[in-house]
């Protein structure tokens, strides 16, 4: 039987099973901690840093932290919101994100976070990197312009043999996430859709289904990101 621990988030008394991931523990207590590289059901990575909170006065990523007795967590502060906004702004500046023609628009987590943190104007100079579209696969496209290298696809999408369908290419700041020609060879439509859904932006696209969800029915058309958790 799980042992429950008590902790506070922004002064609110919370309770969760000991060892629960902090993002999940907050959710169980109706508190939203924003995430991008984190995805329910796959091991956390802590790479995007947008879930950073202050735990007992020290910054830590909530996706890689397990909740313990007596933790005092600060989540919704002006400083942290500013920090999170800067993360979103840097991601926009680093890639080529053209929301107007992106089929993930309205269901994109990066775009939804930009709305949440009121990103109205560029805060950093755009890097305008020269990037391609990987379009050879019969079911999937990988638009490197939009990839934020969160690696959710590498961690979460595996074929029938349990091998990752996506793989790293290049190194350092040139790192790319590609479709693996071998492991992706025989993927079905269901896995292709799962790959598209696991991508927080529009970097993984299923071919020939773009814009089939009408405006008004997209994920964040009716309510902002996190509002399903916050009560």
């Amino acid at each position: 039987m799980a042992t429950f621990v008590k902790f506070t988030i922004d002064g609110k008394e919370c309770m969760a099973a000991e060892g629960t991931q902090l993002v999940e523990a907050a959710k169980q207590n109706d508190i939203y901690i924003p995430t991008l590289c984190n995805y329910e059901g796959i091991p956390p990575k802590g790479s995007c840093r947008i879930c950073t909170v202050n735990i007992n006065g020290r910054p830590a990523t909530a996706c890689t932290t397990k909740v313990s007795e007596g933790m005092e967590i600060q989540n919704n502060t002006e400083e942290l919101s500013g920090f999170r906004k800067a993360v979103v702004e840097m991601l926009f500046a680093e890639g080529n994100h053209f929301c107007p023609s992106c089929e993930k628009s309205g269901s994109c987590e990066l775009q939804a976070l930009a709305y949440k943190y009121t990103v109205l104007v560029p805060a950093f100079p755009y890097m305008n990197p020269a990037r391609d579209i990987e379009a050879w696969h019969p079911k999937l496209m990988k638009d490197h312009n939009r990839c934020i290298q969160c690696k959710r696809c590498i961690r979460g999408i595996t074929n029938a043999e349990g091998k990752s369908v996506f793989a790293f290419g290049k190194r350092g700041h040139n790192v790319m996430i590609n479709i693996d020609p071998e492991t992706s060879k025989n993927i079905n439509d269901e896995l292709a859709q799962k790959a598209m859904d696991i991508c927080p932006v529009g970097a993984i696209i299923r071919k020939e289904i773009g814009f089939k969800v009408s405006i008004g029915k997209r994920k964040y058309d009716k309510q902002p990101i996190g509002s399903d958790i916050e009560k």
Partner: protein
Amino acid sequence: MAQKITIEPVTRVEGHGKVTIQLDDSGNVSQSRLHIVEFRGFERFVQGRPYWEAPVLVQRLCGICPVSHHLAAAKAVDVIYGAGTGDGLTPVGEKMRRLMHYGQMFQSHSLHFFHLAAPDLLFGYDSDPVKRNVIGIAMTNKDLAVQAVMMRKYGQEVIAVTAGKKIHGTGAIPGGINKNLSIEERDTLLKAPNPFNADMMVTWAQAAVDFFKNYYKKNRDFIDNFSKFDSNHLSLVRKDGGLDLYHGVIRAVDASGKKILNDVDTQDYLEYIREEVRSWSYMKFPYIKELGPEKGWYRVGPLARLNTCAFIPTPLAQKEFEEYKKVTNGKPNNMCMHMHYARLIETLHSAEMIRDLLNDPDLQKDNLVVKGTKQKEGVGLLEAPRGTLFHHYKINDNDQIVMCNLIVSTTNNNQPMNNSVEYIAKAMMTGKKEITEGMMNAVEVGIRAYDPCLSCATHAYGSMPLEVTLKGPKGEVIDRKYK
């Protein structure tokens, strides 16, 4: 003394252009040009993108008629998707698109006539510019101004329920549409209390035609003779010759009414249409290949459409069409200012079409998309508010666009607009030593009649102040005025 007159930018049109008029030593107009001076390059940067993205990406050419680009691109990618060339969609797919398109025609035509053109007609092209604008109309004719705003709003609401939002929606997708029309959406437009319902829009559109006809009776000489010249006319028509703004075959007639393009399949447009590039404008000059650039240029838009079609398939607009055709004894109408007349008849037709479509139960059906055998190339044409719009795409084996050719409505009217500028310049400026504001606006009135969208035509960007410069033979500035 030779002089050069520049009007920059042309105002109360969509986008930005400038006019230069060259006067020789005797004060006669020796050369006049409408320059389109900006460039964006959509045809190039759409390359590499997946083909299903084209209807959403390319519509960003324009904020006034994005629906036209959205649907023309969708029609082209329908062909690539194997869904046929315009008549292969399901009834709900085609009719939702048509409803979107007629909403677009209704709002765009209303915008042009009431907001952009009417100030010249109501107050005179040489009246005080402080009054000669849409605010002037609101101050002197409040009911007309409210009607103008409400008509445009209604058209935009029709677009919103079909495309998802009023500007830059996503409704049309390869092979069909991504939503049908709910009963609630239908009733909001069909049965709302006056004035915001489909019947009232038909009434107001009829009143707008009557308004123009009344104006025409009192100003016949101006409407008939201001910038009047013969030209060819080109548009889509329905296979039976009826006016159809969404789909049809390409028909062109000469100034006397003789068919010079006889109901050509839209997929074959390249066999019949060519574009000429001139060094002084970013806008190309299309022409009918067989006739060459000198004789093959043509007009598109409302005037051309009512010259090529045999009838209008809605009763009120048909009645007006018959009266309109009597003016020229059934022959093609080559009078520039009659474009306003034709445009208002089309506005009435659009209102009737919207009302009829809203009553069509096919719009509530669920079979939204059809798919067939993939093609590597597709062409989509429709009649945009300003005229025939051509979208043409080729893709590679990976579904990426490798070629895009757009012949935008206003581009087709490039030579006719230049002719209008020359006609008016010769009539108004020959032998004159001083530029008056009225003269400058007269040139703009001629351009404005075409309702040009210069941004679309060149995929343009930027804005400029209006500057008119009068120069001497050595280039010295004699007179300069700003607007």
